[in-house]
């Protein structure tokens, strides 16, 4: 019997612009955004693409609009309050807000620019609880909280003394954020706690919890959407780990645990090895508590289960890309639809079968 045929992934190319991240719209099930950079993000411009799914068309995806920026774009997040707005993180440290409908000419300008980060801004995340708030992180080590209304950041958290690669809001609690860093740690902050730097010489905010997640750099994290305080991490050591951080103490207790700062801990609940190169992005399924996707420098995107007692925790390997896979994201509306983007300038959208 011939093997079952999988339909090829929907596919669109953005020649000359290598992808860094993609994000599905929380308002429209067929719309997504793609952050990209010329020259693989090393030098040169950035470009934000707005892409829509066109079932039945030749390649199934259409680039509706693009916005050009001075420096490379490393991440993008859709507004949770305004269906046409989205924020991007740029290599020059700036955070920009675009409106898809403000449509004057090619290369439209952003409707807001904030320039407070002093180094590359590497991730942005919009709160899905406090929908007027979003967050960015940067290689200078800080996390900043913003609202579109204010000209300046609402809060700055000096989170790490090394590059912060990703910072995300808890999907369950409005004031809890997690970050991961080149220092190998995953940290959870309670943004209600006063930002009391430990000292002038060590100006780092006290995390509620520090998880020593890896001996090498942690490049990505994601909160499980079903289990509170379950966080997946991935990084240079090629391994995805799932941490149970429920031992965390929050609120008034968060920064009262004495000198040295916060709690240290986190129980490693799952150890998913298989990627042959560093893991660049992890993304939990919004529909299944045990399923996550990972994008890697080994040019694959893999899908894993954290269920115990299965023959293999690796469910699926997507190997259609021919360069580093930089982003992966599950559709928020259509269960089982996954988008992947890569340095081969191709965006894939497909339904992995497992």
């Amino acid at each position, binding site marked *: 019997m011939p093997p079952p045929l999988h339909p090829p992934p929907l596919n669109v190319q953005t020649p000359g612009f290598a992808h860094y991240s993609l994000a599905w719209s929380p308002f429209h099930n067929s719309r997504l955004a793609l952050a990209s950079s010329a020259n693989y*993000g*090393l*030098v040169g411009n950035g470009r934000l693409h707005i892409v829509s799914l066109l079932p039945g068309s030749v390649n199934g995806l259409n680039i509706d609009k693009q916005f050009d920026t001075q*420096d490379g774009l490393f991440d993008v997040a859709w507004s949770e309050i305004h269906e046409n707005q989205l924020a991007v993180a740029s*290599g*020059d440290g700036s955070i920009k807000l675009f409106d898809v409908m403000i449509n004057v000419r090619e290369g439209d300008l952003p409707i807001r620019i904030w320039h407070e980060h002093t*180094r*590359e801004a590497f991730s942005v995340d919009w709160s899905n609880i406090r929908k007027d708030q979003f967050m960015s992180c940067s*290689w200078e080590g800080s996390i900043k909280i913003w609202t579109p209304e204010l000209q300046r950041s609402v809060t700055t958290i000096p989170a790490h003394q090394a*590059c912060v690669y990703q910072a995300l809001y808890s999907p369950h609690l409005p004031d809890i954020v997690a970050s991961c860093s*080149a220092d190998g740690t995953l940290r959870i902050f309670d943004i209600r706690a006063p930002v009391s730097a430990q000292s002038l010489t060590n100006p780092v905010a006290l995390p509620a919890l520090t998880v*020593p997640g*890896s*001996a*090498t*750099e942690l*490049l990505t994290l994601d909160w499980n959407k079903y289990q509170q305080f379950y966080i997946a991490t991935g990084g*240079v*050591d*090629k*391994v995805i780990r799932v941490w149970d951080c429920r031992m965390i103490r929050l609120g008034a207790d968060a920064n009262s645990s004495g000198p040295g700062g916060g709690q*240290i801990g986190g129980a*490693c609940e799952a*150890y998913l*090895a298989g990627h*042959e*190169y*560093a893991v660049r992005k992890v993304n939990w399924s919004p529909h299944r508590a045990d399923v996550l996707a990972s994008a890697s*420098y*080994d040019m694959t995107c893999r899908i894993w289960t954290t269920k115990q007692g299965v023959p293999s925790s690796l469910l699926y390997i997507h190997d259609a890309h021919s360069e580093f896979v930089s982003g992966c994201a599950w559709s928020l509306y259509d269960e089982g639809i996954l988008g992947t983007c890569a340095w081969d300038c191709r965006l894939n959208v497909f339904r992995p079968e497992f």
Partner: protein
Amino acid sequence: MSASLARRLKAIAPILARSASSQSSAVQALLQKNASDVVITFAMRSPMGKAKKGQLKDVPVDELLSELLRASLEKTKLDPAKIDDIAVGTCHPPSPLYISRAAALAAGIPDSVPISTINRLCSSGLMAIRSIAHSIQAGDAEIGLALGVESMTLHPRPTPMLSEGVAKTTKANDAVQPMGWTSEMVAEAYGISREKQDHYALISHTRAAEALQRGFFNDEILPIKLSDKILAQDDTVRPGVTAQSLAGLKPVFPQWGPATTTAGNASGVGDGAGLVLLMRRDRAEKEGMEILGKWIGSAVVGVEPKLMGVGPIKAIPAVLERFGLEKEDVDIFEINEAFASQFAYCVETLDIPIEKINPNGGSIALTHPLGLTGVRQAITGLSELRRRNESVLCTSMCVGSGMGAAAIFINEARR
């Protein structure tokens, strides 16, 4: 622009360096799995204690051995009747074979299981692993235990006495001199300054303190019950050591050579025990044991007794050459820090990046219970490779009386 380019290239460098490092064909050959391989299915140690002051100061060697064996059997669920042989590396306790045999029997190992002890000073633990590995390779045994133990508190180095006739030979006389003297001789012969020694010592102390704080040693320590207390942490690491505090220490051997050795840049004096369970791969699979890693092989060499600390400079290239390896093929080196003088000279002569050597500190910070160290290096190195998801470990040490030893292990496990 150029600053940001440099920053972005630097950010991607570790990702590419680690990911793109293609393994040499020699490494690929060593990574292959065969039924006759000697594999390690368990490798843990007792917590270590500071000599004379620490948690093990009153614990006799037989009790330490016995409790480590008991805890290891419990943890591995290994039926002790299946053990074919045991080797214990230890240097200075009197009647070591008798107390080791007694310890095994007291731990519930049946009298049908034989035991031996091995003494090649600082490499004794490694020699115990080697002896069991060789027995398995020869077909004399399928399952064996290798241990290393020392109580520097209860059994410090006894002063060797030579007959007049033997002592007339200069090198013979050099071979029995105190280790501190050989440290000063290396410092003098190769011009290793006090500052350089303190620099390498500080690296050891800093790395060990950080590893302790990050809980890394918990992966290698088997909590054991001694005199009604569960001991689970080393008490040997001193956090907060600084360049200033090291520079302020007085020489401990003012009578010899340049007098650059101090309590802060020499290996710590400590007590402890460790254990490695080895078996043929097919037997491990049959027994349902998780395989942590694989024994590849070793080299032992002799060097000039007066400069005993240079042993690794001869031993490491010897073992690498045996298996067709380049030093770049090795992911982690565990090189014993007997003294910062000899360690600094070895590191710089071997020309290996310090990032690859003793990533969680060495004997200067952790202490150096002589019989344990060879076993501890294997345990510590394999544990760090698991954490990094890397493969090749080279352990090495200088050996009193003027020798060196080195061995290659392969990590096969994930954390």
